[in-house]
């Protein structure tokens, strides 16, 4: 299901209190609805924004609700609450749409201000049609609105030769320690009973990496409906707990963003690729406690993310990066060479997804992996403890350099459903440098991030 988001700026006047003076007002709003805006129906959207009143200061935290119903109810109603000069005020106004005056009625917003339920002011806001219409229309977006829990449910259908992973990586902001929780279901290719296993690892800033495995244990029949529940370990939406060796943990997960599809969305539901990877929530915050035998981490809003993999096995070679860039931005990269005959010689396919300022670039995952009919594919160079990924679209390019410190790296052996083995080198305390540039006469830096010990990365080969 898709939602709707747009921004709107309104200008006007306000008469507040008994002074009888009109003050100029500017209201900047961002509206987000959980459904696609249908003009003939009623759509309710959340509003957030900023209100500026000449001579009375501004309120940067305006929030409220927008009722969009220009045809069904002939009304577009704004209900906002904000604080101004120590007062809690509420704005209630609506455009009353009429076919007799379509332009005026769609652009003029009379409103009343309330304080504790009593009217304390009134005014009128106008949408500046000549200067505001084009940005307003171009700013409309219809992002998907999905429940992250939908992607936590197991995808395994009983077929042999499948593997499925629930993994979570996070960084404790208090100690800088990285945490890796890996839960895996393997259905051997020989048709024998599926097994559940996994491991947990910590990557302290000082000290050696610790890890412990759990399982293998039989995969329960019938399987869980909401995630991984086996070997005394649970990874379900919002909840992560279990014990392995000296480790025990009990964490809650708070999704902070929409899903991020590293691979094309269709590949998750139609498994035509050797594997598919996604993040049910591009960013998440973790709360709770984890003990690794030496230390106990008490996590409060620790940034990280959970991811899901479903496929036939591990790649021939791969590199992975999850980088929380702050301010809601996140970068996810999977660069992999498939382990199928004929594909093994190809350079890695790079699936790069950058969520920056609420938008995801490149717009489609296929763009970075396949380019435009094979031209302009993003590239990755996987070389020892460092690897890089680069790529460009028409007006934007990116360069990602990842460095995995040897003392904060954990090497583990993976086993595919067919029994073949691979080695992964993982670090939840890696460094990364990311340079995003935009073409405007020449390449100009759009954003640059440097992560010291907070990037999560893995490189695997055979």
């Amino acid at each position: 299901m898709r939602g709707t988001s747009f921004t709107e700026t309104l200008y006007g006047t306000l008469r507040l209190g008994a002074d009888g003076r009109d003050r100029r007002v500017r209201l900047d709003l961002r509206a987000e609805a959980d459904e696609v805006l249908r003009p003939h129906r009623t759509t309710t959207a959340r509003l957030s924004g900023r209100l500026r009143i000449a001579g009375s200061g501004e309120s940067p935290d305006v929030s409220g609700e927008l009722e969009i119903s220009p045809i069904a109810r002939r009304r577009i109603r704004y209900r906002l609450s904000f604080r101004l000069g120590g007062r809690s005020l509420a704005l209630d106004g609506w455009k009353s749409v009429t076919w007799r005056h379509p332009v005026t009625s769609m652009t003029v917003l009379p409103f009343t201000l309330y304080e504790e339920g009593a009217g304390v002011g009134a005014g009128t806001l106008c949408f500046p049609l000549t200067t505001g219409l084009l940005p307003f229309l171009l700013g409309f977006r219809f992002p998907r609105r999905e429940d992250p829990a939908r992607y936590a449910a197991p995808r395994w259908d009983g077929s042999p030769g499948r593997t499925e992973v629930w993994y979570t990586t996070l960084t404790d902001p208090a100690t800088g320690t990285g945490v890796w929780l890996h839960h895996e279901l393997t259905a051997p290719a020989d048709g024998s009973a599926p097994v559940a296993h996994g491991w947990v690892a910590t990557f302290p800033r000082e000290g050696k990496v610790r890890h412990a495995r759990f399982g293998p244990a039989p995969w329960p029949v019938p399987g869980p409906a909401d995630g991984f529940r086996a070997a005394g370990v649970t990874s379900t939406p919002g909840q992560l707990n279990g014990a392995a060796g000296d480790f025990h943990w009990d964490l809650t997960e708070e999704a902070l963003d929409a899903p991020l599809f590293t691979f094309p969305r269709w590949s998750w539901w139609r498994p035509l690729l050797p594997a598919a990877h996604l993040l049910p929530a591009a960013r998440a915050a973790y709360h709770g406690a984890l003990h690794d035998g030496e230390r106990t981490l008490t996590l409060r809003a620790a940034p990280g993310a959970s991811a899901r993999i479903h496929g036939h096995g591990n790649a021939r070679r791969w590199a992975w990066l999850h980088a929380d860039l702050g301010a809601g931005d996140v970068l996810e990269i999977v660069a992999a060479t498939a382990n199928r005959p004929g594909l093994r010689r190809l350079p890695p396919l790079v699936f790069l997804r950058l969520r920056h300022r609420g938008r995801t670039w490149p717009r489609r995952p296929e763009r970075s992996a396949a380019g435009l009919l094979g031209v302009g594919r993003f590239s990755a160079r996987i070389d020892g403890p460092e690897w890089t990924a680069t790529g460009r679209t028409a007006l934007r390019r990116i360069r990602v350099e990842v460095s995995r410190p040897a003392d904060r790296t954990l090497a583990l052996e993976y086993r595919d459903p067919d029994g073949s083995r691979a080695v992964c080198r993982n670090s939840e305390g890696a460094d990364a440098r990311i340079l995003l540039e935009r073409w405007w006469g020449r390449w100009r830096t759009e954003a640059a991030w440097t992560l010291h010990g907070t990037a999560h990365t893995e490189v695997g080969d055979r």
Partner: protein
Amino acid sequence: MRTRAPGRAATASEGFVAALLGDGGDIPWAARVPARFEATLAALPAPVRAAVRGGVAAVDAYARVRTGRPLAALNAGERESVVAELGRRPGLVPLLDLLKVPVLLAAATERAAPAPAPEPPKDPPLTCVPAAHWPARSRADAVVVGSGAGGAVAARVLARAGLDVVVVEEGEHHPTSSFAGRAPLERFTDLYRDGGASAAFGNPPLLLPVGRAVGGTTVVNSGTCYRTPPHVQARWSGRFGFAPADELGVRLDEAEALLRVAVQPLDVLGANGRLALAGAARLGWRAGPLRRNAPGCAGSCQCVVGCPTGAKQSVQLSVLPDACAAGARIVTGARVRRILADRDRPGLPRAAGVRVERPGGGAFEILSGLVVVAAGALHTPGLLRRSGLGGHPRLGSNLSVHPATSVAGRFEEPVRSSSGVLQSVGIEELHDRGILLEATASPPGMSSFVLPGLGRALRRELEDADRLAVLGAMIADRPSGRVTGRDRALVRYALHPRDGRRLLTAVRAMGQVLFAAGAQEVLTGIPRAPRARDQRELDELLAKVTWRQLHLSAFHPTGTAAGGADPEWAPVDGAGRLRGVHGVLVADGSVLPSCPEVNPQLSIMAVASAVAHAHPT
């Protein structure tokens, strides 16, 4: 003609007024009548004004054809001969009677000595906000459309239940102090919709005045407070399934207490009422002073233009102050354009508020999930139609109006009916036959009774009007009317023959009472049979006329959005909720299922209270 400035030609109106009143320049007060006549016309709606001016122009044209000069250029004798010729044409007399009404209003006003202005009392406080000062967007828990008997009570009930109530009233707030010192006619044109010229079209047509002010028609009614008769309550409850009728007793008690209803004491009853009592007593008929909501009535005889002493407990003095004390606010001078309804929801649409027009242009809106319609039986259907909620086929039909007529008796001694209680005595002898007689003396010229004659004859009648006692009769009618129109109410009323016969019976009965009280003659108000000197002569006259020739008024429109259990018959359900929408209640005279057979203020208030109480708050 003497007020005319030198060198200014006399207008057609001046000529017409002089002709109609037989003015030869010898009547001191007559010189002021044309200006008053023009002022009265100015307050009338454009179509009525155009019709009167057309009539005046037609009479003037007749004078030109007969004499070669307009009425204004003729001398008194020539004018008299012109109107006499017109008066000899029987077909024209009813039309001339219609033209006489504004002239008589103006003449009676100028002729009457200015009443002494009583000390203006202090009204209980109301929270009134003129429409111009109301914000363009606001919200409320309940909006009540209309502040008359029904709207005021609904507002009071809802406000006292804790809801934020806004009452939207098309009229203005006229405090008691504004009545003192102003001529009744000026107040008349201010307080009535269309300057008091609203009418029901039919054969015969009926004058149907309704109030338009904060307090609605209760500001301008006579203050008579009859409880709903038990047989009417039983009919509403049993035959129509109208639930408010089940608890009407309690609600009537409540309304009577609010209005401080009591039997009118005899001390200020006035000669008009005493003569009615005397006549009825001689006939052995059931009669007595009416129960009224006017404690301390001073007998100003101006109920129908706003009580100048504040004795009459119109709802603006008794009910609305309670509502305002509980937080209700009244927006004045605001006409509800439409009820807003949200239609994009499962099931029925839901009321969302009202869109209201300001007098000088522009509009404001109030959002509210509950809208109580109390715009009166004539205007509730139009409001619902222009809101898209008037889909029920019977909306606007079922109109009862209490057709009424008046008869005057001339007595030897001055009656001075302008002093005393306006509607003082009820004669209920014929009530079980649907006829209610009430001694009703209106301010000069405002009675539904029209003096006979034209020219000097009319003037003599006018000068002799102090010796007239007036009785009125209203009948319980069949629902023979219909209100159509969206923006303006167009009322059609086809008097049922049974009701016509009742009216003739009522005229005869009133003549009986007046003769029994000692009247020298009775003026019937019927153009073709204007006077009778005894009962036998009256009976002979009435034998020659039909009910279509009666001069009729009506005062109590009800039933146009009738409540009842049958969804096919009643636009409003048995609990007062408009069918086809959620959140719209009807709480005025329009929701009464049938004619209440008595002055309806208490009935409307009681029903409105029951409807508002039944709504979960």
